[in-house]
């Protein structure tokens, strides 16, 4: 089992550890709900060092990523980040990732932990006809600082001005690579740094009253924020067009891997869509529950859970594109419970978007 460099810090902070994609990671440090609220109202931090960091450099780096990714790598500036999917030839999602443009021929990809081996194999295979070097970085750690006070807390430790760092941009401050990105729907930063320096930064942030948060809170935060989780909301059998990620796919030049299938799907119209569900009564919506309308089964919950900000059970469900019902049912144990259909996100800037 892999451990991040912060493993001992987690134990010291009272973490309950779980196996996550082959890594020993903190699920919570006592109360997942309190950690969730810390991020919505103040500032929390997550060790996400298990994620994969891949640097891509060389004369053909841009051309390679234009072919590899469904998003448009040519539209980002130096220091800007792009969220994109990486597709197989059938249009299924191999992984979703964030890519930073660090210089003209130099990019940094941050992708999921559980997909590391297949991502590396796919990149290396596709790179054969391009002049690029692909290097996985294994001596780096990543700390995500998230919440309305993230800037204030991180700024207290740094001299570089963070206020001028725009959303989805990054800067380099000595050994720290700081992106204004995250996975919670709040303002925040993802700090990539040499692994050996990570425990000291962690301890400084603890002293600065930043709440350590586990993967449990990370999941409810991203669910409220309407952000997809690879392996649940999409996988190799689903195209981004059919799972609510069409916005991330470039509209012109379908000459990326999987592009011809996407172009055809766009022409014919998507078959499925991802909608938000809000359970009307008591209970908890969960991954895998069956979704029905009055005529029977129509889809499935891809991600679900209790939402601490709205105090309701919420979910993403994949259903037919042409199903316009405002109310659906979810099968929980032996009951069919009514749910309202909404457009994610459920929460923005700490506030519930659900009508009372």
């Amino acid at each position, binding site marked *: 089992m892999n451990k991040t460099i912060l493993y001992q810090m987690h134990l010291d902070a009272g973490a*309950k550890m779980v196996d996550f994609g082959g890594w020993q990671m903190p*699920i*919570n440090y006592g*109360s*997942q*709900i309190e950690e969730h609220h810390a991020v919505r109202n103040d500032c929390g931090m997550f060790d996400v060092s298990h994620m994969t960091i891949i640097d891509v450099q060389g004369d053909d780096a841009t051309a390679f990523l234009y072919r590899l990714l469904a998003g448009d790598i040519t539209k980002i500036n130096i220091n800007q980040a792009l969220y994109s999917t990486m597709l197989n030839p059938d249009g299924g999602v191999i992984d979703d990732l964030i890519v930073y443009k660090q210089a003209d021929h130099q990019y940094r990809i941050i992708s999921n932990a559980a997909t590391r081996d297949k991502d590396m194999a796919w990149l290396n295979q596709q790179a054969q006809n391009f002049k690029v070097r692909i290097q996985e970085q294994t001596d780096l750690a990543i700390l995500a600082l998230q919440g309305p006070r993230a800037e204030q807390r991180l700024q207290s430790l740094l001299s570089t001005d963070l206020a001028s760092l725009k959303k989805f941009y990054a800067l380099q401050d000595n050994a720290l690579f700081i992106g204004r990105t995250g996975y919670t729907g709040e303002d925040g930063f993802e700090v990539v740094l040499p692994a050996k320096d990570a425990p000291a930064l962690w301890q400084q942030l603890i002293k600065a009253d930043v709440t350590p948060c586990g993967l*449990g809170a990370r999941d*409810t935060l991203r669910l409220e924020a309407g952000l997809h989780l690879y392996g649940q909301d999409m996988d190799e059998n689903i195209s981004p067009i059919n799972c609510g990620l069409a916005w991330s796919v470039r509209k012109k030049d379908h000459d990326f891997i999987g592009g011809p299938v996407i172009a055809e799907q766009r022409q014919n119209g998507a078959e499925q869509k991802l909608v938000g569900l809000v359970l009307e009564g*008591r*209970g*908890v919506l*969960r991954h895998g529950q069956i979704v029905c309308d009055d005529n029977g089964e129509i889809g499935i919950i891809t991600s679900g*859970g*209790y939402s601490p900000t709205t105090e309701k*059970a919420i979910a993403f469900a994949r259903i037919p594109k042409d199903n316009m019902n405002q109310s659906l049912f979810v099968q929980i*144990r032996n009951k069919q419970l009514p749910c309202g259909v909404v457009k994610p996100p459920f929460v923005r800037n700490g506030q519930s978007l659900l009508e009372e």
Partner: protein
Amino acid sequence: MSYVPDNLSYTASHEWLEEIENGLYRVGITEFAQEQLGDIVFVELPENDEAYAQEDECGVVESVKTASDLFAPLSGTIVEVNLALEDSPELINESPYDDGWIFVIEIADDSELDSLLSAEDYRNSIEDEE
């Protein structure tokens, strides 16, 4: 080590029982169980007057992490449920042996009492899991 009061009886599925009068037992889940579950956000209570056989599923405790079935620790009839849990399921986290009780069962068969665990037995059974 989780707190396991000496004066209660237990099941291997992490329920505790307290005899409140002859044949009436108050039931909840143990401190260890609520710690394993994490923040509890929903409890599906058994129905009043419903009869269950020993080890029947009689309800569900759902946390942020997972749904966990609740089992009737003994055969009998539910005579009271803790309605406070409908609005405040977190009482199970905060006070598993007291305010977080779940139901009261009138037992049907005294001989089943022998199948319950003592505090010491239960402590031993969770030792490996902790």
